Structure formats: structure tokens, C-alpha cells
């Protein structure tokens, strides 16, 4: 039996009807009166000095209202290292560098004008891989840092490392050691809704930005700083978030195009919209970076892990955004996926003249789980142990503290692994290498699931405001981007307050009306929002029930008096006055009553009626209600140099398994069955939770087998879905068994953990491990294409 009324029950998403009927307002749908369209002139070189910019032809084009460059606008620096500029003045460092921009009456004119801008360059030699960039004497992408100090190499000045235990002792204690180098490609987040914004100023110089962002409040901070650069210190930015067609990390930073829209809006005094089409999204937005990882791990004669050593090199591209901090998240699995002492982790982030990179769902975790979980299988193979048994032997346990200092509270990893094996019929199927070339593989995952502290506060505020009609408006600063956050909020508020989910109305995210939130990332949205919601709902409920002592008897007496006019009425055989005197009130399902009362309408006060009775009180001043709460999880900001700190309030675990069939003549891999078992703490809305996992699996399969942004000396070769391949419904035509393990986390709202990211983390290594089981070939370089498999088969012979 479900102990809850709404939690755990399939509930339609509140945002779904508008989305499926085309009524939701995405950035694409929004037009403001007097609005102009912006277009950007991007670089024609990956690395060059800008000699001259001639905007005269663009300015002459009818319909053009403004043409801006770094020479006629104030300098706006962006990125957390301040190594990027909204408009480039002296040098371009990547093909997507913004050199000039135009505001015009329509998008066609704006694009045409941008194309008329003539730029003279002095091309410079570039570096297009970390290997090239790290060579002694390689061209420098940045000659100086943000403060103007000379730089000597192309290494980005961020450090994430971890050294615990005694690595050498671990190595000596090893019976078996494996080593391998693994690679992951550059990939695109591939949001259905492309990027865009509208910037507008009021007459006092305050900015409103309608932005496709996941971090409204950090963005507000960034834009306020930029207002300072315009000489508008003390003015404010209001960030309004429209319906988002997917975020997947693209909205975790502010972008040059947003500052350009702001500069154009300030210059023209009119709202300016910039919208990317699909090709621009591919060529000019920050993808997920490519990386390589060298991993060594060992085990003793029983298969117990003895040490783990990892060195990561990431291609940062030309500027620094949050992608450069992926190693902060890599530390979690590197130190804490399975029990391992003696861990060493080093990372190097390298500037190149490639496109600069950004966050994407999983944020370093898939990149590092790929080598770790492939290497576990390699180690098991070498040690002659079943990889499933090896995982069980080294499985994380509730109550343990890992080398990184992660405090594992609840942990369903063992159950996830066991259920995965059972669903795959593992013992029967593994290691057969039969004529059909079928194989099974699995991989596990650990992921932050109670926030991920990377900022001074990892908290979330919320405001609950009931109206006179029994609805509760929720103002929350995080972002619904398709993942189902509003559904989780509606269920949680309803459950915690005692009303119905359809009476919970979640407002549009707007920095002017919502309390602060650090951003919707790190699988933290529902965990934070719902924890804050529970706190606020409790306060609100306590206040409401205080009023019940006055309102309930008054409303019930009245209802009874009305009822007595009917001859058939029978007095209730229940002393409700006594229960009310004792304060035994209950609010559930939108109805106020007293404990033990029979289900008679006269003894029930509708939630809206209660609110109105308080507002329009018969005697004395009435009141309306609103309660807020701020939830700050009990976590630590890690010491990144040491790679130690309990950055999340809880951790999600999971395991995925796959059965494949490999065509040894063509190298094609057919997935026969996919199993995903995830420790989710508690299921809030089964429908949206499964949606998160199905979607993540498709992304995981894309990462594993299809996706790659191809570049040639920094230029994107496949900017669109014609040649950037996502799995289609046809590629997903196999049975998927999703199982949810409930560990009921003490810190989670109703026990729930964050679930946004884990679903795509172990997919690639599970597939690679299954391919190895089928044909004995190991691919260490994503995506696993038929061509790579065939080549590996040929090389083996």
C-alpha cells in the first residue's frame, strides 16, 4: 500500500497539454512590440589577428538599425575566467568568434547585413588537439590571462586532483593490473528548441532578458556585471525564462549572443531578439568536450580493487566555460564508484582553437564512467572473474565514507546490479561467445543526487501563495526544461500541504518574483525544489491549522444548520466539537476536517472556503497567506586541489545491462535488450521518472554508438542532423526494462533522490562490455561505430 496519496502515483504533467497542443511559449514564439532582430558575424578563421573590420556596406542596407563591433561598444568580458569577450577586438581564437553584430527589422535583413561586414585577418597557426597544444613552443591560444599577465602554455588554470591512500602500496598489493586509454568525442546537446533570447531595456536602464537559461540567478549576476560595463552600475537585470525545449546543460552559462542582444538593445533602445537556427546551434553553441583518460586499476587475487589511477586530458576549446570543471564531477566516480582505496586522479584542461565547450547532462560522469567501467571488465577478464561478481565484491555499501569524503547514506547499488543480472539472465548468457555472436555486458553508476556543491550556496528558495479559490501558486527559481520539474513540485506541494495536485500552479521562472536558486543542474532540480516545498508547505499548513480552530466550528455549524432544513437529515453520531477543541485538524486532498470524523459533507471544509473565511473574516481583521522557505543541503564545498568534500546530500546508484548481437562481417551492433535499474530513493511521479530514464538511455546510446561533432581544423563539418546522427525511434526498437529501486533516502523529499543524469552514465560501457563478451573485441573510443569494430576485428586476426 502506498503511504502517500499522490507521491508514487502516475500523474499527467501540468505543462503537457500546452506543449502537445502548441500553446506553450518558447523563445521562438515570443515577439515584443518594436522588436528588432539581431544577427552575428562570426569568424572565418580558427586563429587569426583581426586587421580591419569594415561595416559600411552593412550599415547602408535598408532596415538595419545598428551595427556593433568591439570598437564601438564597451568591453564585456564573459566566462568564469573572464577569458572571453562578447565581441572580439584584436584576435579570433575559434571559428565561432563573434566579431560584429547587427540589429535590423527582420531576421533576413539582419543576416544579410552580417554577411556584408568585411573582415581582414592575419591568419595565425592554430592548435587543434590537446596533443598539439601541449607541444613545447606551440602557438598560444591566449598570450595573456584576464589580468594581462603573460601566459607560457595552453593549460587552462583550473585544477582538480585527488590523491588518497598509498598508490605504490596499492600497486604492490595487486595481483592483476590493467591499463588503457579511453576517448570520448565532442558531442552536441541537441535540444529540440534552439538557443535564443530577447533583451530589452526600460527607460531607466534596467534590463529584461527573456533567456533560454538553466541558471536565472547566476545569469542575473553576470548580466548585472555587464550592465556595469555599459556604465549602468546599480541597474538591474530581470531574467525571465520561457518554456524551454530542452536544456541538457546548454543553459548553464551565459553566452556571447545574450550580451550581444543586450548591447544591441541598449544601442537601439528597442527589444532585440537573437535566435539560432539548427546549423548555428551546431556551429556556434558550446558542445560537450572531447576528452581522453588513461586509467590503471588493480585487484588482488580475490578480485578486490587495490588501487585506481586516472589522468584526464580535456580539449577545452578556445575559451573557458563550465565544461572546464567536468573533473570536479569526475572525482565522484573516480574515487567512489565501487570500494577502492589508494586513488590518484589528475586532470589537465587544454586550450585549443576548437570550439569552446560547456556543460551537458552528466557533466563529466559519463566521460569518466566510460573508462572506469570498461576497465573493471578488463580487470575481471584478466583475473578470470565474472565481471558481475567483481562488481558485487567491490560494491559500495550504505553508511560508508569514500576516499573523496562522500558520505554514502542510502545505497541501492547491490540490488541494482543483482536485478540487472537477473533481468539479463546473466549467468546463463555471459561468456558463451556462441555462433550468433551475442553477448551481455553491464556497468554501474554513482551520481550526485542531493545537489552538487560547486558554489557558495547550493540552495533553493520557494514561495507558496494560496489564493482565495483553493489554488496554491508556487514561485520557484529553478527551471522546467522538459524534465518534469513542475510535475514533481505539484505532487510534492499537494502531498505535503494536503491539497490536490491540480490546484498547484507553478509560475513561470522569473528573477523578479522567484526566490534565489543556484540553477537546474547536477540532477538537483526536484531534490531541491521538493525539499524547499516540503519546508514551506509545513509552515503554511501549520498556519492554516491554527486558523482552523476559529473557522472550522463556524463553517460546520453553518453547514449543519443548512442541512437540518431537510427532514431526512440525521445528526452526525460524532463529537466533532470535542475534536475541534482538541485541535485535531486534518487537511488532506483539499479538505479540512477533524480526526475520526465520518465522511459527511457538513463536517468537511473545502480548502478554498477555509482561505476565504480567513481572508474575509466575520469579526476582526482577516489575512491572506504566503510562506517561503529556503533549503540548503547539508553538504560541503570540496577542496578541489585535494579532491575532498561531501558535495552532495545523497548519491544515486544504478546499473545498466545490455544484450547485443554483433555482425562480424559488417561490424554492426544490434541491441537486443536493455535493462536500467536505478536507485531513485523514492518515486515521485512514475511517469516522468521513467521518461527521464528512457530519454537518458537514448542519449546514452547516442553517445555510445552514433554521435560525434566532426571538425577539421576547428571547423564543424556536420552542423545539422543530416550528418550528426542521433538514434531515431528505429534504433530504439528493442525491449527496455526499467526498474526503480526505492531506498527511501532520509535527506530526500519523501525519500527521493535526484534522477536527471544517472540514466545516461553507464550506457556506453555496458554496451562496450557486451560487445567484448560477444566477439572478444574491446573498443576504447566512442562512438562505437561498425567501422571501428570491423577494424578491430581485422587487427586482431
Amino acid at each position, binding site marked *: 500500500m502506498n503511504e502517500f496519496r499522490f507521491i508514487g502515483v502516475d500523474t499527467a504533467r501540468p505543462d503537457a497539454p500546452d506543449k502537445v497542443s502548441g500553446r506553450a511559449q518558447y523563445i521562438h514564439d515570443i515577439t515584443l512590440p518594436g522588436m528588432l532582430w539581431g544577427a552575428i558575424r562570426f569568424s572565418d578563421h580558427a586563429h587569426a589577428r583581426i586587421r580591419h573590420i569594415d561595416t559600411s556596406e552593412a550599415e547602408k542596407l535598408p532596415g538595419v538599425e545598428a551595427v556593433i563591433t568591439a570598437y564601438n561598444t564597451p568591453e564585456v568580458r564573459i566566462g568564469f575566467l573572464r577569458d572571453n569577450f562578447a565581441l572580439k577586438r584584436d584576435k579570433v581564437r575559434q571559428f565561432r568568434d563573434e566579431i560584429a553584430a547587427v540589429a535590423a527589422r527582420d531576421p533576413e535583413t539582419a543576416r544579410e547585413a552580417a554577411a556584408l561586414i568585411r573582415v581582414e585577418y592575419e591568419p595565425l597557426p592554430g592548435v587543434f588537439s590537446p596533443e598539439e597544444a601541449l607541444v613545447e613552443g606551440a602557438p598560444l591560444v591566449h598570450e595573456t590571462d584576464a589580468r594581462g599577465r603573460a601566459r607560457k602554455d595552453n593549460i587552462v588554470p583550473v585544477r582538480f586532483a585527488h590523491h588518497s591512500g598509498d598508490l605504490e602500496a596499492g600497486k604492490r598489493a595487486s595481483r592483476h593490473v590493467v591499463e588503457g586509454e579511453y576517448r570520448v568525442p565532442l558531442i552536441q546537446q541537441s535540444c529540440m528548441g534552439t538557443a535564443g533570447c530577447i533583451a530589452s531595456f526600460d527607460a531607466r536602464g534596467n534590463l529584461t532578458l527573456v533567456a533560454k537559461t538553466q541558471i536565472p540567478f547566476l545569469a542575473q549576476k553576470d548580466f548585472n556585471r555587464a550592465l556595469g560595463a555599459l556604465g549602468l552600475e546599480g541597474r538591474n537585470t530581470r531574467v525571465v525564462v520561457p518554456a524551454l525545449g530542452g536544456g541538457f546543460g546548454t543553459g548553464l552559462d551565459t553566452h556571447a549572443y545574450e550580451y550581444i542582444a543586450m548591447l544591441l538593445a541598449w544601442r537601439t533602445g528597442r527589444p532585440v531578439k537573437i535566435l539560432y537556427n539548427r546549423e548555428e546551434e551546431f556551429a556556434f553553441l558550446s558542445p560537450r568536450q572531447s576528452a581522453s583518460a588513461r586509467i590503471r586499476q588493480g585487484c588482488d587475487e580475490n578480485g578486490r580493487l587495490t588501487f585506481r589511477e586516472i589522468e584526464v586530458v580535456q580539449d577545452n576549446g578556445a575559451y573557458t566555460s563550465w565544461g572546464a570543471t567536468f573533473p570536479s564531477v569526475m572525482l565522484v566516480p573516480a574515487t567512489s564508484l565501487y570500494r577502492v582505496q589508494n586513488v590518484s586522479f589528475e586532470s589537465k584542461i587544454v586550450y585549443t582553437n576548437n570550439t569552446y565547450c560547456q556543460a551537458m547532462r552528466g557533466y563529466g560522469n559519463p566521460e569518466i564512467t566510460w573508462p572506469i567501467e570498461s576497465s573493471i571488465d578488463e580487470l575481471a577478464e584478466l583475473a578470470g572473474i565474472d565481471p558481475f561478481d567483481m562488481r558485487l565484491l567491490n560494491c559500495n555499501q550504505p553508511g560508508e565514507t569514500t576516499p573523496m569524503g562522500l558520505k554514502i547514506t542510502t545505497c541501492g547499488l547491490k540490488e541494482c546490479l543483482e536485478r540487472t543480472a537477473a533481468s539479463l539472465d546473466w549467468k546463463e548468457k555471459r561468456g558463451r561467445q556462441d555462433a550468433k555472436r551475442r553477448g551481455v555486458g553491464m556497468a554501474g553508476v554513482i551520481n550526485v543526487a542531493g545537489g552538487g556543491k560547486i558554489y557558495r550556496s547550493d540552495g533553493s528558495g520557494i514561495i507558496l501563495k494560496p489564493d482565495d479559490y483553493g489554488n496554491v501558486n508556487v514561485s520557484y527559481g529553478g527551471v522546467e526544461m522538459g524534465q518534469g520539474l513542475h510535475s514533481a513540485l505539484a505532487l510534492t506541494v499537494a502531498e505535503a500541504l494536503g491539497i490536490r495536485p491540480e490546484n498547484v500552479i507553478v509560475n513561470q521562472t522569473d528573477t523578479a518574483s522567484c526566490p534565489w536558486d543556484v540553477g537546474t543542474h547536477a540532477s538537483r532540480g526536484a531534490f531541491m525544489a521538493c525539499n524547499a516545498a516540503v519546508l514551506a508547505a509545513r509552515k503554511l499548513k501549520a498556519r492554516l491549522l491554527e486558523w482552523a480552530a476559529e473557522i472550522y466550528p463556524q463553517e460546520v455549524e453553518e453547514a449543519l444548520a443548512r442541512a437540518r432544513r431537510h427532514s431526512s437529515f440525521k445528526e452526525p453520531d460524532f463529537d466533532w466539537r470535542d475534536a475541534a477543541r482538541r485541535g485535531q485538524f486534518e487537511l488532506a486532498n483539499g479538505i479540512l476536517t477533524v480526526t475520526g470524523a465520518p465522511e459527511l459533507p457538513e463536517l468537511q471544509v473545502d480548502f478554498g472556503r477555509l482561505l476565504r473565511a480567513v481572508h474575509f473574516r466575520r469579526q476582526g481583521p482577516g489575512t491572506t497567506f504566503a510562506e517561503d522557505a529556503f533549503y540548503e543541503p547539508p553538504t560541503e564545498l570540496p577542496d578541489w586541489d585535494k579532491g575532498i568534500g561531501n558535495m552532495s546530500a545523497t548519491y544515486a546508484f544504478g546499473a545498466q545491462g545490455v544484450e547485443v548481437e554483433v555482425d562480424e562481417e559488417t561490424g554492426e551492433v544490434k541491441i537486443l535488450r536493455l535493462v536500467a535499474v536505478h536507485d531513485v530513493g523514492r518515486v515521485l511521479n512514475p511517469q516522468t521518472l521513467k521518461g527521464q530514464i528512457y530519454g537518458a538511455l537514448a542519449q546514452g546510446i547516442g553517445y555510445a554508438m*552514433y554521435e560525434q561533432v566532426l571538425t577539421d581544423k576547428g571547423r564543424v563539418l556536420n552542423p545539422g542532423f543530416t*550528418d550528426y*546522427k542521433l538514434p531515431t525511434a528505429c*534504433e530504439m526498437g528493442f525491449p527496455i526494462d526499467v526498474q526503480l529501486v526505492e531506498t527511501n533516502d532520509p535527506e530526500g523529499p519523501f525519500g527521493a533522490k535526484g534522477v536527471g543524469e544517472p540514466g545516461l552514465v553507464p550506457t556506453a560501457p555496458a554496451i562496450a562490455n557486451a560487445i567484448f563478451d560477444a566477439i572478444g573485441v574491446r573498443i576504447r573510443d566512442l562512438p562505437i561505430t561498425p567501422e571501428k569494430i570491423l577494424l578491430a576485428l581485422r587487427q586482431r586476426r
Partner: protein
Amino acid sequence: MAYDYHRSGSLAEAFALAARDDSALIAGGTDLLVALRKKKRAAPARLVSIRSLPELTAIEAGPGLLRIGACAPLTEILAQPVVRERLPALAQALAVIGSRQIRNVATLGGNLCNASPGADSAPPLLVYDATVELAGTGGRRELPLSEFFLGPGRTALRPGEIMTAVCVPLPVPSAQSVFQRRSRVAMDLATASLAVNYELQGGVLKSVRLAAGAVAPTPLRLRAAESWLEGRAVNEETLAKAVELARGEIKPIDDLRGSAWYRSELIGVFLSRAFRNRKEGDA
């Protein structure tokens, strides 16, 4: 982008408009509109639509011959029992072109006239010895399909000429044909494809036809491999030699869909699989 759009009321009118050098013919538009949007083709002043002319959409089965109007949508062609029963390689190829939505508007003539090296209808039509009817203000002519393709995007169509129909001789019932293809995902152009048509008589191969797609500037017949196989029994040695000859005839390139090496491997696999384990009378 703005064009005049002219929906032809008659074939004569279409011929007249097509003859003007600022016109472009549009059938289903699934290649043309993409090319125009991506600026891979100079913008014409006028699009001349020919897809609703009944003369161009009819599909007629005569004795031993199927005449498919150039503007017949792929879905319509696939719905013909004669195609599924007598021309299985063509049915297999048409069924994987794009998606159902694409197949509902894409035409056979468009697929051929677009002259992509990977046009999926071409290899099966080549192995069935299809001919194409071309017509214009200057009259009508018929050409073997194998002489139609001149290069990527280039055909034997003369300025102003319209392809009116594709004529496919129906193979003898004992003939066997198959189309094989690989692409990265569904809804993707072929990385490589191969159509095969042959008869097995008294243990030896007869009337062997092989045609490959996406491995040369045009879809092409693999004549050296065909004549090697002609009159021989199917065994691993024969096939190995045929694969070697076929690989010598194709001219694959490296591109985003695959490397030349992989394409060449695929052609070998498709060829062997088309003949391996086939017995007399197998469908």
C-alpha cells in the same frame, strides 16, 4: 527565398516551361527544397511542378513490363503487388528511403534525376535492366538507365527534358534478386548498397546483374564481377574472386558516412551474402 510556383496543367505546358533556363522542375521536392535551403544549388526564378500530371503518375503493368510514371510517389509504387512479388530488390530499396512521410511525396523520377551516387532506387533498377523515357519540346527518347547517370548530380537529361517514366522488364519467375544496404541510422543516406539479380540454372549462375550505390560518382553496374560469375557455380572461391573484381570496379571515397575502406568491405559482404546459401528455386 521566394520563387514563382507553377503547377503545370498539361505535359505540353510543362515542356514549355521546363525549356526556360530560369525554371527548375519540382516533383516531391524532397531533394530540391533541401538543396535550395542549403544553397547547394542556384536559386531558380520559377519552380515548375509536374507531380499532379496524370501522364506522369500512372503505374501500368503490361506483359513482361512495368511502366512507372516518373512522378509516382514511392508509397504508391510500394503498394503494387507486382513490385513486391516480381521486383523484390526494388521494393526493398524503396522501403528504406527516408521515412513514410518522405516516401509519400518523394517520386521515383526525382530519386533518379537528382542523381545522387547513393540514390537507393538506382541499383535495383540497374540490375533489372530498366530504361528511362525522356521527353521535351524536342521529342521523346528512351535510354538504358545505365547510360543515364553521368556524375554526382549530373544526368543525360538535356536542357528542358523531363523524365516521363521508368520501364522495368519483369524478371523471369526463376530469377532471384536482393537489395542490401547499410546506413548509420534509419532516415540516413546509404553508406553503401548493392543490388543483385541472377538465375541459378543447373547449379550455375546465369544473367548475373550487380549494381552498387554510394561507392562511386554514380550508381554503377559491376560488369567485371558480373561476367566472372556468369556460368559459374557458387562457392567461396568464386565469390572471393567476384568480390575482388567488384572492389576493383568501385571508386569509394572517405566522407562523413564512412571511409572508402569500410565501403569497400561492405560491398564485399553484400556480394557474398547475396549468393551464399542460395539454392535453385530460392526466392
